[in-house]
């Protein structure tokens, strides 16, 4: 076989695409991956990872500011915005190199350029603007029995608040600021908006968050939304809900934003604004229309094994619909390629995909919210446990937070778990495993949790749901 013919060809090397490529190679497929810009995609280069690096700097800066609380002295504390950004970029670079190494190790051919599908089994790659990494194949015609589209998503642009990338940023510009603006407007309060609000507030910006829906963090449980909002407001973030930015008036070095809040209309003047009003799938220029691949509101329509309506063409990750999360993309890719191999692969249960937001305090959740459970007319038991009742949380100086669990009253099935507070993004997986194993409250109550840890709160919340809470 020539080097232009593959069993599996993946378009896009984000977390969905590159993990799929590794799994495909493990399964014995001759595999190629097409990338036009950065190995690792948005996640590694302009999303999940570099923002975590930025937020870590902010967190440490926050500790410096509160050194006294821990009996420590820190004088002349401050930050160097360029240094914070440089660290974040270095982290991305390291992981980006790592993906290159993984492709080599797994004998995945990297093809550099913009791919479009001519027909099932046939892909044309055109040269892209960015430089190809060493060893990558170039533009040309390629063949593959199975094509997997993993092209991800990009920032949504709403009329009236179009980003100009100087005064009005998307996450790309927000990640590499020259300096921290004195004042910042964040439009949208999903994970992306809230993480930037938290980062810039910690570094001293006057931050205003505007959300069109009645609550911030629209996908989270109501108790968590309320708790988080109070925490953010205590930190000095101004929050407007049921409010809409209708116009951004760009000045020389500032922006005047027109906000409609109920009956009122007011103007907020800020140095910079971030548009974080969601993302949309990258479905353009792939040749989908010509092939008759079904799409729906900016995403590709797929079945439970991520097959599109056209045989031989699959789609995974953001481009195949919400939730648009890296770990959803990864898992979909694995399920998809295992199904291609003919393995007994289980489709993903989308109700068991956890979500994490790395603001301060952190937010993590999985499964049904209390409101969703009630809308489904489920008879439920709810348990809650506050951080203030946990020894480890108090020792850490992180005594603000909440763990909440929702059980089906009749069967004891864990329907959902919702957390806000320190390190909850590392805790949620305990509940995710429990849900996937279909545990009931009984097994959770029989499980020994180590002391002293934050995880003890996870057990206490379960006990609370059954009237057996101990430490409150």
């Amino acid at each position: 076989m020539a080097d232009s013919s593959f069993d599996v060809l993946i378009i896009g090397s984000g977390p969905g695409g590159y993990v799929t490529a590794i799994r495909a190679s493990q399964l014995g497929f001759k595999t190629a991956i097409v990338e036009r810009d950065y190995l690792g995609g948005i996640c590694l280069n302009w999303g999940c990872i570099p923002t975590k690096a930025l937020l870590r700097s902010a967190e440490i800066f926050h500790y410096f500011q509160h050194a006294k609380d821990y009996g420590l002295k820190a004088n002349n504390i401050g930050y160097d915005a360029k240094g914070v950004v440089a660290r974040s970029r270095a982290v991305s670079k390291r992981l980006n190199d790592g993906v290159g190494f993984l492709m080599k190790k797994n004998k995945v051919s990297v093809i550099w350029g913009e791919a479009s599908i001519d027909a099932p089994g046939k892909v044309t790659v055109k040269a892209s603007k960015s430089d190809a990494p060493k060893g990558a194949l170039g533009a040309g015609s390629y063949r593959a029995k199975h094509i997997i589209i993993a092209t991800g998503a990009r920032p949504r642009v709403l009329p009236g608040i179009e980003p100009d990338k100087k005064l009005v940023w998307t996450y790309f510009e927000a990640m590499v600021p020259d300096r921290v603006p004195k004042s910042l407007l964040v439009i949208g309060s999903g994970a992306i908006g809230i993480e930037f609000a938290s980062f810039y507030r910690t570094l001293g910006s006057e931050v205003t968050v505007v959300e069109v829906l009645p609550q911030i963090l629209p996908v989270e449980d109501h108790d968590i939304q309320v708790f988080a909002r109070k925490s953010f407001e205590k930190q000095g973030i101004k929050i407007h809900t049921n409010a809409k930015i209708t116009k951004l008036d760009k000045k020389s070095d500032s922006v005047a934003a027109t906000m409609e809040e109920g009956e009122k209309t007011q103007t907020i003047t800020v140095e910079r604004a971030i548009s974080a009003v969601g993302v949309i799938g990258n479905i353009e220029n792939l040749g989908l229309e010509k092939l008759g691949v079904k799409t729906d509101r900016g995403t590709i329509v797929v079945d439970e094994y991520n097959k599109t309506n056209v045989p031989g063409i699959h789609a995974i990750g953001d481009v195949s619909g919400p939730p648009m999360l890296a770990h959803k993309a990864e898992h979909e890719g694995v399920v998809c390629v295992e199904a291609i191999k003919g393995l007994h692969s289980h489709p993903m249960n989308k109700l068991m995909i956890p979500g994490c937001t790395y603001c301060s305090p952190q937010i993590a959740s999985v499964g049904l919210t209390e409101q969703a459970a009630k809308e489904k007319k489920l008879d439920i038991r709810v348990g809650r446990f506050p951080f203030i009742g946990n020894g480890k949380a108090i020792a850490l100086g992180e005594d603000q937070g909440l763990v909440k669990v929702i059980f089906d009253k009749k069967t004891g099935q864990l329907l959902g778990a919702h957390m806000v507070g320190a390190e909850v993004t590392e805790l949620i997986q305990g509940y995710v495993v429990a849900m996937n194993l279909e545990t009931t409250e009984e097994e959770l109550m029989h499980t020994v949790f180590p002391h002293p840890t934050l995880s003890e709160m996870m057990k206490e919340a379960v006990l609370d749901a059954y009237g057996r809470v101990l430490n409150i």
Partner: protein
Amino acid sequence: MPTNILMPALSPTMEKGNVARWLKKEGDKIKSGDVIAEIETDKATMEYEAIEDGTLAKIVVPEGTQDVAVNSVIAVLAGEGEDVKAAASAAKGAPPQKATEKKAETVAAAPPSAAPRPQKPSPPTVEAVPATRGNRIFSSPLARRLAKEANIDLNPVQGSGPHGRIIARDIERAKSGKGLRAPSIAPALGAAIAPAMSDAQVRALFEDGSYELIPHDNMRRTIAQRLTASVQTIPHFYETMDCDIGRLTAAREEINAAAPKGKDGKPAYKLSVNDFVIKALAVALQRVPDANVSWTESGLLKHKHSDIGVAVALPGGLITPIVRHAETKSLSAISNEMRDLAARARERKLKPHEYQGGTSSVSNLGMYGIKDFTAVINPPQSTILAIGAGEERAVVRNGQLAAATIMSVTLSCDHRAIDGALGAELIREFKTLIENPVMMVV
């Protein structure tokens, strides 16, 4: 890409097989349809045909290997124009799997948007690995609780989770009677049955060197497993009847003498007593249709046809090929079919569909001079007829002692499906037919 050649599932229940013989060597060119290997299943040896052209790059499982799990890679085929050496080395990472460690990762690549391509011969349906280890049924806590609330027995529930684990959705399906396995036999009842002696306990009773250890082949194991299950789960009862086969013997001689001769001078048929027995049992089952049944938990299967299994002794075992729709076939057709089936059975060349199922069976030990014996029912059948030797016996007729050719037959019945009186009706019909063979002809 090289294609993996997998251990085929030659029957719905097949979990493992032996690679009896390789008929191709590494490096041989193979055309679709070529017989590449012989696979020994529990009761038969089957020829395994290639479904693609290519070169046999690597034999992963050497011939003579036993207990290879279904869907394990047994060889690797390099496609046309592919590098044979590369294909062979790619196979190195895939050691043959023992049946106990069945992994799903060895199934061949499927074409786009199609179900996994079945290897030839295609299995009717391959059951998921039953999630039992001894008496434990693997199930999720939530599934157990849902089952308890709905009063559902987990035993027959087919698990759809990883490794066949029963999960919540299986219970939801079971509530509407879906996703149930055929009643499993031994495992569910294991607890109620006294454990057999261990191998070590048995050997300890004999002096070292005073015996030779003969390893079990698949047929031996299958016989042990199926008949143990039969005796442990089927409440057997037995009914014996003496049949006067004087007329039958005479008729048989007449019919055989009248057989037209073929070109080679051989008669077109030569009926045996057993052929009459098969036909008589088949017709009797049609006349007593309530006895032509199979027991299942959800209801009796009342069969429309008489599919009669006939036990054929082989060196080291036995097998029961089936004469389908025997009630509709002429004696000569039955006779010729049996001759073919028995010959192929002795070569262990029967296909699974030729020995699985059946609605009743005949076991004949008359040729050994056995006067009367009882046979073990072959599930899913509900009856089996044990045939003794036809011998001259002194009988009393109208107060006078007389000589007659008598054959004792014993019917074993599954009491779950057939009661004593019904069994008696069946054997009485059999007696009427076998004593008046003319009636079988009409």
